[in-house]
């Protein structure tokens, strides 16, 4: 077992087989730097719990194909990314820091899928972005490719 410590001083025990999906921790273990508790100063306990949940579920990724658990895993992934923007970004940050490639992929793709068909206004509102372009600048961008701004697929809702 490997012990991880979040930045709010909570400790979590994780099986080595699960935790080595993180390249960073895998390297630490290989280099013999993971003898006691591994402190993770960038990750809070709430996010770390999510990440560990993912690691535990994906522990036997290779076996999933053999045992027909692929669908199960897919369903888990779909449920997993069903979270608010802030939480999602926290997990992405953690996945990036811990270097967990699959998790990074999953979360970034989920974010992209949510944004894909959104209108500019909806994106700004969802991500709390202040528009700092002038009206002229904005119009110029629209004129460059007006077709990208119109069409029935464009979604102006913010959920």
């Amino acid at each position: 077992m490997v012990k991880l410590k979040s930045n709010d001083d909570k400790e979590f025990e994780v099986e080595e087989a699960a935790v080595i999906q993180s390249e960073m921790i895998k390297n630490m273990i290989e280099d013999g730097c993971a003898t006691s508790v591994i402190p993770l100063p960038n990750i809070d306990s709430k996010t770390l719990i999510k990440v560990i949940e993912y690691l535990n579920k994906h522990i036997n990724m290779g076996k999933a194909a053999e045992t027909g658990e692929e669908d199960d895993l897919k369903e888990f992934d779909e449920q997993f990314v069903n979270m608010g923007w802030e939480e999602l970004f926290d997990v992405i940050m953690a996945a990036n820091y811990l270097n967990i490639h699959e998790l990074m992929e999953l979360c970034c793709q989920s974010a992209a899928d949510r944004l894909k068909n959104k209108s500019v206004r909806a994106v700004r509102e969802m991500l709390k972005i202040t528009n700092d372009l002038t009206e002229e600048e904005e119009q110029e961008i629209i004129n460059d490719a007006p077709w990208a701004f119109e069409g029935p697929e464009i979604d102006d809702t913010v959920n």
Partner: protein
Amino acid sequence: MSTSMDDHCPLPEDLILFNILLRLPVESLLRFKCVCKHWYALIKSPSFIEKHFHHKNNHASLLICNLEVAPKGHSIVKSVVFSLLPKKIIPEKILWRRCPPGFVEPCIWEDDKMIFEITKTSQLVLYEPTTKQVTDLGFQLDLSITGCWVFNYKESLSPIKRGNDSQGKDNAVEKIEHFFDVIPMDLNPLLTVRKSQRMSFLRFMDVEKNYLEKRLIKTGIDGESEMRKTLKFGLIHGFLICMVLNP
């Protein structure tokens, strides 16, 4: 969502934004340039452009090559767009997986066809992996010019025999125009298309500074129903992009 992010952008680092935008299709990116200055600068940056093209999940390549203007088996005229951008932004996977021996650098690929530039002669050919037939497009590339080219070819192009065999008139590429970064205003229509039984109308409706839109109105096979499709063209990353949009 908790209250801690109410007043600021929750995208904590460029790295994350970068990674998310990479996965978006070109159309979304063109729109999201309008979100704020920061997004605009990022989407326009050369490092992003290159990474985006390479990325597997954003359908960037589909936008370029999804050019079928009629249902399979009934295509008569197709518009083909390809790019002469630097080799490094042709997706390596496709190069590696599909390039038949003796050819290099497919410039465009469709479901089952690709155009390869033959290095030595800079001759353009169409290669069909299924039949392994090679068709000469009768056009020499000027390799000193970088930019996008657009031309039409007929589905019935016969396979090339060898060497200097002359092409029948029907098999010749009818008109080729070369685009630089900005489509010249004075080239209208930019594409000319032969009339045929099924294709009643195909021309550019509008030519503006750097985008084109045209409508294709096609009479259905039964001669009655009209099938309307909109072809949308846009320039991004130096590519001329063609999309076929269903009504």
